[in-house]
Structure formats: C-alpha cells, structure tokens
C-alpha cells in the first residue's frame, strides 16, 4: 500500500514523498506508521478499560442525581436505602472529607450537592453495594426533599442579569473583548457588508467507554485510583482536596481509556469512588451506564454568534465584527478558556486589520459545558466560515477564491496582535482541495432510464421513500485554525523518563510518563521516538501513573509535542551518556560516534564499534526530562492583545452532499480534508485523527444534539442521540502536508483538533450550495431542509445541480 504526504518547508513546498509500507518489516521509528503497542490486546478483547477493572470483594458505587435543574435541598433521608440487603453505605455532602468544591480551573462544583442543585443530573449522594443493580436500587431509595426553583436556561437572559444569580459572583463566567484596528472608522470603506447569526447545538463527546474507575484503600488512610482520564495529575490535585488528603496519599494509575475528546478532563467518578472506598475500607468500582454518562461529563458549549463582515469588491476584508455567547451551564469547568479560544479564532484564518470581538460565557441551569475537541474554535469556525460563504454570495465570488484572497500567511497579524510565526500554508490547503476532482455524479445511483435507483446511494439510504426525483448536489468548503498547546501564559510542560538496560542480552528501552493514552496513539509515538533516537528496537512504554512528574493533559492537540518533546530530550541525555562512555572505552571523541542497531557505531561509516550489551553489561542508563514550551502571555482585559500562543494549526475541508429536498434527507457523498501537521510522526495515526475528527464534525453538522428543554436532557441515550454510523460517514480523501514547525520536536504540529473545526461548516456550506437555504444553525435538521425549499418562490429554489 502506498500513501502520499506533501513535504513542506522552504524549497520543498510541492515535493511529494512516498511512504511504502512493507508488511514483512514493520516500520518502527519516527515518521513511520508503527503499529500501536496496545492494538493486539485491544483486538483480542484483553485490554483492560476502566469499566473492565475488578477486584475480589469490591463494591459497586452508584450516584443519586438531581431530577431538577434548580432547587434547594431541604432534606436527604438515606434510611430506606440502607435497609436494602447488600447496601454498604450511602454518603452525602456531609460525608465529603475535604473541600466540597472542585474544578479544573475554578473550584465551584460540589463533590455532592449541598443545600442547592444547579442542574438536572447533579450528584447529590453516592451509594455502594455488592451488586451494581443493588447500588442502583439504593439510589432509587434515597429520599431527597427539594424546593423546586425556576431554572435560568436562556444564556441571553443570564447575560442580561435576569433569572437570579446561579453563583455568588453573578452569571457571567468571563467576558472577552478583542479590539484591533478601528472598525468604526473603516466601516465606510467597505463596499459590501454582510451580517448573519449562527447557532450551534450541544454536542456530546460520546466516547464509547463509560466513565469508570476502581478505588482501592491502602489501609493507611490513602487511596489508589485506577481511572480513565485525560490528565491524572490534575485529577489527583482535585481529588486530594476533596478527600482532605495530602496529594502523596492519593495515587492515580491510568486505566484503559475508551475515548475522551475533552470529556474526561473534568472529574466524574473519581472523588465519589475514593470516598466510598475509604469509608468502607474496601475497593469500590464505579462505572456509569450510557444514560448517566450523558450527565457524567461536560458537553460542547452551544453557541450563538452574530457576525458582520465588511469587504472591498475585490473580496479583501475591511473589518470583522463578532459577538458570540456560549452557554456554560451550571459550573465553570473550562468555560473561561473555551470562550477565550473561541474569540481568538472568531475572525477565522484571515488577514483583517480591523476587528471587534466580544465573547461571553455565562452560567445557566443547563448541564455544565467544558472541553470538547476543538475547544471553542469549533463554534467560532462554524460561524465565520458560514459568514465567509455569505460574503462570497454577496460579492458574486467563488468561496474558495474569497478565502484565498484573505488567507493568512506567515507573519500575518492576528486580532490579538500576535504575529503568525510558523508556517501558515492556508492557501496551499485550499488550492489542493479546489483542484481535487469531484466525485462522479452517481454511477450506481439513479442509473438511467428504466433502472431503479440504488437506494443505498440516495439520501437516507434504504430508508428513502422517494426515487430520488428531487435530489440536488452541493459542494462546500471551509477552513479552520486553532492554537496548539496551552495558551495564555500557562507554563505548559511534560515529564518523561527514559531508561536503557540490557535484558536477555539485548538492549531494552523503557519509557515512562504520565501522558494519557485516550485512543489517539501517544503510546505508539512514545515507542517510536527512542527507536529513532537510540537505535534500539525493543521499547516498552510503561503505564501512566502519578509516581512520575506531570505530563499535562491529553488535550489542546499538545501531547505528541509536549510528551514527545520530553521523551526526545530524555533520549538525548541517555545518548550523550552512552556516547561518552563509549568514547572513553574506544579512545574516540564522542562526536565521531552514533547509535544504531543496538550498538555504538562509527558516525561516518556506520560500522558497529561496540554493542550496547558490551558497553553496559548490567548497568542501566537513565534520564528524566521536563519539557517546557516557550513562554506565552495572557491577552489583556481591555483590548485582548497579547502573544498568547506557541503555535497554530490549520485544516480545510471540501464536502460534497446530495440533498433530497422532498424529504430533507442528506447524503454526504465525500469529505476531502487537507491539513498541515508539520511532521507526520505516525502517518497512519495522523490519518486516523483527521478521519475521526472529520466524522465528529459531520456529527455536529447533521446529527448530534443533546436536546435540553427547561434544563432537562431529553435524549440521553444512543437511541436518541445519534452519532455517525459507518453509513452516515462518507469516503474521505485525506491529504497531509508537512511544513516543519520551527519550534517543536521534529517540526511536528498538533493534529487532533483541527479536522473537527472545518468539517462542520464545509458540510453546511455544501447544503447551502445545494439548496440556497440560509441554514443558520447546526445540526441541520430535515425540517430545515424541506420547510421552504420548492414552495416559496424562485429565491428559495434549489440552485444545486440535479443529479
């Protein structure tokens, strides 16, 4: 099999490199599609996810949750629950040993609600029993008396100060204000102005592995927790506070993580399982079912954006004005950072000198919202990319051409005043997509006269009840941009230990870090780097736990950069020591030597001089490295200016859709993506990230919405909350560009989030192209596509090509 990737960098911009995979010689090092070390266990069914953990004699925990979005707790009676045979204990707020508030950025969420509940689904009590069903029955038997209050569920009302404060400081979690240039004075120079409002719904991360953990008391007052997480060190900080323990008494080990996508940044079972285990002196397992999972993690913030763009007739942007509001729900989680991130990129990946952005994250009595893949940039990208297509329409300009005219480049100044200092191959991504051949009209579809259509090729698939008489095709493009790594002045770092020893006569490298493997493949990368740096084939990646230093979160598309950087640098120290030892032994300067094939070699000839086994004997060479990225600064409160970011990453999509305008059904025919990744550390895994992120963007465009009425989630199940199936997801045409980043290990850039940004607006722009409808909100529903099409005059008539 042959895969291609575009090589980047000065002087090599359009060169194509070809990676040929030889199945007999598995690729191992950096830049090759090494098999991930956990894959064999996963296909065998032997990989232990958090929900698979067990210990003899363990108890099962379950959670009492509030049925009301806003209420006072008048009393809690656990006596009936305790009478059930097999129930060990029921704990409430009064039993929280330490601080009854936790949170990633701001400790404002009770471990167990005390006196007041702020969303429907909030944890009020926890029970432990000898069977999970018994624990659930205990939960049902807990009597909580509430005084029900009127919930505040409208974010605009929250912003306006109505509905009463949900938190003592009021209902605005953060306001972000960015001012660049002077929109007021340049407005008259705009020859074309468009305005629009765009909404995005509540998306659930919908990782398949439920929240789960196993807490084991150590008999000395401390606890070990095995849990699915994105960031075990920050979990530990919060858990220790909740338990009133020194952090050294709380040890976390990452168990198998069945997907995360941001939804495992906040705590779920963590403190509850530990409380129950410490109280009972027995191991306690908690594992949510799917319904509880919808309440057990944060969702993507729903957004409302108003965008005004002013441009010259040439398409050149004169100004961009954005107001956007995110509903953060009942607790802060990461809302202040998500709104900042949405605002950073609210003007898109475009050069524009005059910008006004006002963003607000507010508290309501809806379930809490926080991190989800893309982290605010998804909502911003949907809005600005919709607005760009509207502007293209007003200008009578090709949407790709409009984007290319305004595309940022290296050196462009962003609305926050920061200059783009890495490669910004936006134009290249767009040109690639524009020049790709379009998929054929439908060779196997309606076929021709006298042939029945192949229903599988029609919108709605075999559920289609027309014969495809009014199917129109559309093509849409979108471009996304996001910062990589922690921004805004955070000292972001990761720690890794690399040790090399001789086992059974052969060199073995052990890599140890706390980086959370959530499916993205950091375990593979951690094994690839020592193979390249130390020339040793056998690399073992130890399980992540808190006995080593912090790795930071598997979030912000940062882990390969940060932990990869730490592993590379630790390998460098090991290599230096090995070469110095070899230099003494061989009487050669270390500069003349290199590591390859499990030996120290002559650098020039590659001839082995001494094997690592001979050099080390029974000794181990070990190094620890703490990798920090360059310092950043927060944006200021007045004008939102500051060099807040270390790097930016870019992706673009082209979507081709068929819409049945009679039924409002959509078939995404093809999704093409182009993304710059700096360096594809593991090309197959990079493709997997782009394909998976693209599918999640499709979900937000067409299928996925947590429906909330008066603060109540109406569809907490996979029957009613629809994530894309294999039938919903089209063939993808992925092009990977490698423009080396100047400031990162191997020139890599973050990969995971950018494809989730532009997928959604590319699909909706394609729907707009097909139907001529405005389609302000996602997910687009069938009713949105049929309500006016074909029944409301020429301006609403489909303008796409008939297939």
């Amino acid at each position, binding site marked *: 099999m042959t895969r291609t990737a575009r090589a980047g960098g000065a002087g090599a911009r359009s060169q194509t490199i070809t990676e040929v995979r030889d199945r007999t010689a598995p690729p191992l090092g950096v830049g090759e599609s090494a098999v991930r070390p956990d894959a064999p266990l996963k*296909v*065998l069914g032997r990989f232990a996810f958090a*929900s698979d953990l067990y210990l003899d004699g363990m108890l099962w925990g379950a959670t009492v949750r509030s049925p009301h979005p806003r209420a006072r707790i008048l009393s809690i009676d656990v006596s009936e629950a305790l009478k059930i045979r097999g129930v060990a204990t029921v704990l409430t707020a009064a039993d929280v040993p330490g601080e009854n508030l936790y949170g990633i950025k701001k400790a404002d969420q009770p471990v167990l609600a005390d006196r007041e509940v702020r969303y429907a689904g909030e944890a009020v009590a926890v029970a432990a029993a000898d069977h999970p069903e018994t624990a659930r029955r205990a939960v049902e038997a807990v009597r909580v008396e509430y005084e029900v209050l009127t919930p505040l569920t409208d974010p605009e009302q929250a912003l306006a100060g109505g509905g009463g404060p949900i938190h003592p400081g009021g209902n605005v979690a953060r306001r972000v204000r960015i001012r660049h240039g002077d929109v007021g004075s340049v407005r008259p120079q705009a020859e074309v102005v468009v305005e629009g409002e765009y909404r995005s719904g509540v998306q659930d991360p919908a990782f398949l592995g439920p929240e789960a953990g196993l807490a084991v008391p150590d008999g000395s007052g401390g606890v070990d927790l095995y849990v699915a997480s994105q960031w075990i060190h920050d979990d530990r900080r919060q858990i220790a506070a909740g338990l009133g323990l020194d952090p050294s008494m709380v040890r976390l080990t990452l168990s198998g993580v069945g997907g995360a996508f941001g939804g495992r940044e906040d705590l779920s079972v963590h403190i509850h399982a530990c409380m129950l285990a410490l109280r009972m002196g027995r191991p306690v397992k908690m594992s949510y079912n799917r319904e509880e999972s919808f309440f057990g993690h944060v969702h993507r913030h729903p957004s409302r954006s108003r965008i005004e763009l002013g441009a010259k007739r040439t398409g050149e942007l004169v100004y961009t004005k954005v107001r956007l509001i995110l509903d953060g729900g009942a607790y802060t989680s990461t809302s202040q950072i998500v709104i900042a991130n949405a605002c950073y990129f609210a003007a898109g990946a475009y050069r524009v000198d005059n910008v006004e952005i006002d963003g607000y994250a507010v508290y309501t009595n809806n379930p809490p919202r926080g991190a989800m893949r893309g982290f605010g940039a998804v909502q911003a990208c949907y809005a600005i990319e919709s607005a760009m297509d509207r502007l293209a329409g007003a200008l009578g300009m090709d949407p790709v051409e409009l984007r290319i005219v305004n595309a940022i480049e290296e050196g462009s100044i962003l609305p926050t005043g920061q200059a783009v200092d890495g490669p910004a191959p936006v134009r290249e991504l767009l040109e690639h997509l524009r020049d790709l051949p379009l998929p054929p009209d439908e060779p196997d579809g309606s076929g021709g006269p006298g042939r029945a259509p192949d229903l599988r090729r029609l919108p709605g698939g075999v559920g289609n009840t027309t014969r495809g008489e009014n199917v129109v095709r559309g093509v849409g493009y979108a471009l996304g941009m996001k910062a990589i790594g922690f921004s805004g002045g955070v000292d972001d770092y990761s720690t890794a230990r690399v040790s090399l020893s001789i086992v059974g006569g052969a060199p073995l490298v052990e890599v140890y870090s706390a980086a959370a493997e959530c499916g*993205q493949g950091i375990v593979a990368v951690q094994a690839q780097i020592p193979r390249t740096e130390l020339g040793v084939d056998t690399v073992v990646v130890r399980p992540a736990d808190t006995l080593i230093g912090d790795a930071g979160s598997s979030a912000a598309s940062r882990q390969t950069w940060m932990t990869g950087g730490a592993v590379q640098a630790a390998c460098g120290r090991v290599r230096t020591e090995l070469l110095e030892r070899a230099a003494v032994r061989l009487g050669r300067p270390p500069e003349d030597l290199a590591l390859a094939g499990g030996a120290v070699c002559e650098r020039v000839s590659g001839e082995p001089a001494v094997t690592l086994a001979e050099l080390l004997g029974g000794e181990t060479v070990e190094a620890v490295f703490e990798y920090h990225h360059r310092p950043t600064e927060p944006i200021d409160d007045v004008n939102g200016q500051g060099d807040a970011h270390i790097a930016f990453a870019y992706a673009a999509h082209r979507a081709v859709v068929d819409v049945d305008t009679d039924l409002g059904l959509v078939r995404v025919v093809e999704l093409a993506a182009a993304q710059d990744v700096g360096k594809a550390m593991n090309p197959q895994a990079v493709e*997997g990230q782009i394909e998976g992120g693209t599918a999640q963007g499709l979900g937000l465009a067409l299928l996925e919405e947590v429906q909330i009425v008066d603060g109540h989630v109406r569809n907490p*199940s996979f029957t009613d909350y629809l*994530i894309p199936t294999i039938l919903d997801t089209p063939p993808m045409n992925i092009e990977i560009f490698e423009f080396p980043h100047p400031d990162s290990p191997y020139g890599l850039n973050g990969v995971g989030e950018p494809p989730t940004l532009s997928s959604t607006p590319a699909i909706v722009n394609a729907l707009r192209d097909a139907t001529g409808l405005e389609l302000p909100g996602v997910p687009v529903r069938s009713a949105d596509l049929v309500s006016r099409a074909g029944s409301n005059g020429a301006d609403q008539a489909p303008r796409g090509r008939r297939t």
Partner: protein
Amino acid sequence: MLVELTVNGRRRTAENVWAGESLLYVLRERLGLRGSKNACEQGECGSCSVYMDGGLVCACLVSAGQAHGAEVVTVEGLAEGGRLHPIQQAYVVEGAVQCGFCTPGLIIATHQLLSENPDPSDDEIREALAGNLCRCTGYEKIIDAVRLAALEMSVI
C-alpha cells in the same frame, strides 16, 4: 438462577444469577470475559456483539436466562494457537484501532460478514457494520481492515 452455557467451546456455569442480568453481564462479571464491551447497553452501539447459536446478537439485549444452554462465541474465542485471527491482524495493521472500545464488537461483526460474504463490496461492508458505532476512526480504516481481512482470508 443457574445459567449453563458453552462459551468459546467450553462449558461454563454461572451461579446465583439475578433474573435481570443480561448475557453481557454474565460474560463480563460472572465469567470474567470482559472482551465484550458495555458502551450503551441498549443494542445501539454493537460493542457487545457476540455469536449466540451461530447468530450475531447484542449480548446486552439477551437476558441471562435466554442464554441458558446456548453456544456463545466472543471476541476472546477467535484467536487460535496464540496467533491473531486474520481479522484481528487486519484491524491492527490497518490502524483500525484507536481507543479500541468498539473493536471487539466490530471484529465479531466483521467475522460474521466475511463468513457469509467472503468478498464484500464497500456498500456491503457499510451495511453489515452499520450497527457498530465507532467514535474515533471515522470508519475509513475499519473499511480498510475488512478489505484486507477478506483478502488475507481468501488467500488462506
């Protein structure tokens, strides 16, 4: 309740089974076979797919009592002699595994597809696997894996 069944060719007995337990619970918690996963527990995600008496079922939708006397094959029963089954190998090689939570169910569903249709078209692959949700991969590499497995198994 006592439930006796054959799992991966071995006679197994689960004692003190509560009437509300599912086949999935019996496999995972009574028999220690945790390869079949519990992502939705209402038959939507396919991650608990197993063979029961030769047919593909969601183990979460089968009550433990229904499985009494049945012959069940789970993901743990595919590999032989310490070697991955060609389908498992194909999922590994093609990068079709990310978080891996959907993988056991998809492998069973792929096994069922290829045993009935050794050379499926892409449309047939999509139709056969439409009951198995994956949140990580976007399905492209899963289709690659099924194609590769079909090829490898046709050579054997």
